[in-house]
C-alpha cells in the first residue's frame, strides 16, 4: 500500500448495530494484516461499540480525539479473519465443461458445500459412502437430469381421468391385479435409488439430481397406478411372496453399480416392454395413457443406468465379472421362488384377449409370449452393449427373474 495513503472511512451517523459493521469489515478486508484503518463516525457510542467489536475480533484499536473535536479510531487489522482460511479446501469445478469429469474421489470434508466452494479446514467430514467417481458417475447424468426436469408431468392434468369407458367386470378385475403388481414394482424402483441417493457425495451433483428425479418419477408412477386401480372402486388385489422375494433381492444388491444393473438395465428395461404392451393392449384409455407416460420416464432410468455402467466398465473392465456374478447370485436366490404369479400372468393374457372366449384367449396368450420374448431380446441387446459376449449375454438374459423386474 502507498505509504502516503492512509485508508479512512467515515460511517457518519450509521450505528455499528445498524449495519455499520458491514462497512468496517469490508474496509478491513482491503487491508493486509497489520495495516491501519482510520475510522470516523458520529452515531452515539460508535467508539464504544467499535472497541468491543475489535476486542472480540482480535483487532487492535485506539481511539483519540482529533484537533477539530470529533473522535477517530485507528484499527490495526488482526490476522484472525485470514487465519480461518489457511489450509482451506478447493472443492472442484462448479460447471463441468463438456467431457470434463468431477473429482476421482470426493473429499468427505467438502461435505455439503456447493461444488467449487472454498471450504474451511476443519469442516466436518460427512460420511457419504458413495464418494468414488467410478462407483456412481455417468457421463450423461447432467443431460438426463435436464431432460427429466423438462419432462415432469402432472398426473392431475396429464391424464384424462374422466375419459369414458365401461369394462366387463372380469376385465376390470384383471386391470386391478395388474395395477397391484405394477405398484409393488414401482415401490422397489423408488426405494432402491432412494437408498443410494442419500449416500451419494453431493460433489457428484449431476448423479444426485438424476437420481432425485428418478425417485420423483417413481413416486408419480405409484400415484397414477394407484388411481387407476381404484378408478372403478376396486381395492388392491394379490401380492405374492415370490414377487416380493424377487424385488427384495434388488434392495440387497451389494453396491450401487450392481443394484443399478439389476434394477434398471435388466428390470426397468423389461418393465418398459411391459408398459408398452399395456399401452398397446389395455382396454381403456386411462390405462393406456398412464403406461405411455410411465414408459417414457423409465426409458430415462434405463439410459442413466446404461451410461453409468458404461463409465464403470470403461474405468474397470473387470467389473463385468461382478455384474455376471450379480445375475447368477440373484438367480440362485430366486431358484426356489415361484416367479411371476399366475394371477398376474392370467390378467395380462386376459387384457390382451379382451374376452373369455377360447379364440380370444389364444390371441392374448400369444401376445404375452411375444412380450416375454421381447423382454429377453431387449435384455440381451443391452448386455451386448455393455460388452458381454453373445453366448454370455443370452445366458444372463435368460437367467433374469421370471417376475420381470
Amino acid at each position, binding site marked *: 500500500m502507498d505509504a502516503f495513503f492512509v485508508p479512512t472511512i467515515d460511517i457518519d451517523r450509521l*450505528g455499528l448495530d445498524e449495519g455499520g459493521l458491514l462497512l468496517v469489515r469490508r474496509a478491513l478486508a482491503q487491508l493486509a494484516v497489520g495495516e491501519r484503518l482510520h475510522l470516523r463516525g458520529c452515531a*452515539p457510542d460508535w467508539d*464504544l*461499540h467499535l*472497541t*468491543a467489536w475489535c*476486542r472480540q475480533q*482480535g483487532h487492535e484499536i485506539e481511539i483519540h480525539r482529533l484537533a477539530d473535536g470529533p473522535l477517530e479510531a485507528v484499527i490495526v487489522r*488482526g490476522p484472525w479473519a485470514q487465519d480461518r482460511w*489457511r489450509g482451506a479446501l478447493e472443492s472442484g469445478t462448479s460447471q463441468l465443461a463438456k467431457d470434463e469429469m468431477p473429482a476421482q474421489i470426493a473429499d468427505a470434508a467438502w461435505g455439503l458445500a456447493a461444488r467449487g466452494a472454498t471450504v474451511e479446514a476443519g469442516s466436518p467430514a460427512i460420511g457419504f459412502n458413495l464418494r468414488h467417481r467410478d462407483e456412481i458417475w455417468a457421463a450423461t447424468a447432467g443431460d438426463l437430469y435436464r431432460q427429466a426436469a423438462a419432462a415432469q408431468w402432472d398426473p392431475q392434468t396429464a391424464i384424462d381421468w374422466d375419459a369414458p369407458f365401461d369394462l366387463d367386470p372380469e376385465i376390470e378385475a384383471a386391470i386391478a391385479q395388474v395395477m397391484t403388481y405394477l405398484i409393488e414394482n414401482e415401490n422397489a424402483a423408488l426405494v432402491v435409488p432412494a437408498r443410494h441417493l442419500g449416500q451419494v457425495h453431493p460433489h457428484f451433483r449431476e448423479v444426485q439430481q438424476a437420481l432425485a428425479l428418478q425417485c420423483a418419477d417413481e413416486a408419480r408412477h405409484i400415484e397414477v397406478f394407484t388411481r387407476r386401480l381404484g378408478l372403478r372402486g376396486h381395492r388392491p388385489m394379490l401380492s405374492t411372496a415370490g414377487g416380493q422375494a424377487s424385488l427384495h433381492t434388488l434392495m440387497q444388491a451389494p453396491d450401487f453399480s450392481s443394484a443399478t444393473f439389476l434394477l434398471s438395465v435388466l428390470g426397468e428395461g423389461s418393465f418398459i416392454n411391459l408398459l408398452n404392451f399395456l399401452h398397446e393392449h389395455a382396454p381403456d384409455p386411462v390405462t393406456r395413457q398412464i403406461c405411455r407416460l410411465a414408459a417414457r420416464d423409465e426409458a430415462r432410468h434405463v439410459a442413466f443406468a446404461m451410461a453409468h455402467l458404461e463409465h464403470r466398465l470403461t474405468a474397470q473392465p473387470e467389473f463385468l465379472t461382478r455384474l455376471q456374478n450379480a445375475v447368477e447370485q440373484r438367480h440362485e436366490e430366486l431358484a426356489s421362488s415361484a416367479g411371476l404369479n399366475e394371477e398376474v400372468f392370467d390378467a395380462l393374457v386376459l387384457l390382451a384377449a379382451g374376452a373369455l372366449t377360447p379364440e380370444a384367449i389364444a390371441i392374448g396368450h400369444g401376445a404375452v409370449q411375444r412380450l416375454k420374448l421381447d423382454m429377453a431380446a431387449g435384455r440381451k441387446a443391452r448386455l451386448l452393449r455393455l460388452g458381454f459376449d453373445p453366448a454370455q449375454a443370452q445366458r444372463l438374459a435368460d437367467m433374469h427373474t421370471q417376475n420381470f423386474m
Partner: protein
Amino acid sequence: MTQPTLIMGAVAYAPKVVTIWEGFKAWFAQQGFAFDYVLYSNYEAQVEAQFDGTLHVAWNSPLAWVRADRMARSRGQSVQAVAMRNTDCNLRSVIVVRADSLLQSAADLRGKTLGVGAIDSPQATLLPLHHLRLAGLIGGQDFTVRRFDVLAGKHGDHIGGERDAALALLAGDVDACCMIDGNHLGFGLDGTLPAGSTRIIERTAPYDHCNFTTSPDAPQDLIDRFVELLMSMKYDDPQVRPLLELEGLKKWKPGRVDFYPDLAQAVDEEGFYSADGRILRADYRY
C-alpha cells in the same frame, strides 16, 4: 509410572462447558499432556477447592480471582493469574437508559431505579455500582437497585441477567440498566434493544475478565507446561479453532492482575467478601 495429571476446575454455566473442556482434554492428550477437569455449579465451591488440594488451577471469573487472591493472602500463600483470553482485557460496562429518557448522567439517577444483573455479576452489578459510588451515588440509598438474578453463583457468566434487565428497561420497569459494552452492541444486533432505542449515559473504567488462577500448592512444572501449551494454540489450526471459538477467544495471553482493583474495591463497598475471602452477603444464594 503414570504421568502426573493437571486438574483444572471450571464452572458449568452452560451445557457447552462440557464440550469445551472435553475438547481441550483431547487436544492436551494429543500433545502428550495429561489434563483433566472438574466442573462446579458455582465459583464459590471452585475457589474453595483450590485450597483443599482438589484443583491445580481454576478457570476463574474476575470475582473468583478476587476471592482466591484474598483467601491465599490471608493464609500466607499466593495464587497467580497465569493466562487469560485476548477478549478478557479492557472491557467496560455501561449504564443505559431509554432513548427518550430525561436522564443524562449518573447524577440524574438519584431517586430512580437501576436494573442490575445477578448479585455476583462483576460486569452488570458490582462494577457499575462502584462506578456510581465514584460519582457520589450509593445504591440502595440514593437510588433503588433492582436485581435480575439469573443463576447466582456463576458470577454473571450467564447473559440472562443482563438481558432481563434490558427488557425491563424497554418495558419501563426500570429507569436504567447495566451491561457489558459488547452486550450493548450484541443486543442491538440481535434486536433485543433495537438500534436507537437506548442511550448510554455512563461508562465504567476498563477492567479485565476471566483468568486461569493457580492454586497455592500447584506443581510449577505442570503449570508451566499447561501455560506453554495454551500459548501454542493457534487460531489457524483447524483442530484448535473450534475450541477457541467456543470459549470466545482468538488467542491466549499471559495473565495480568492490574485491572482487577476496581472490582476488589466494589467487593468491599458492597460487603461481598471479607478481607480474608469469606462470603459476607446473607442474601447470596448459590
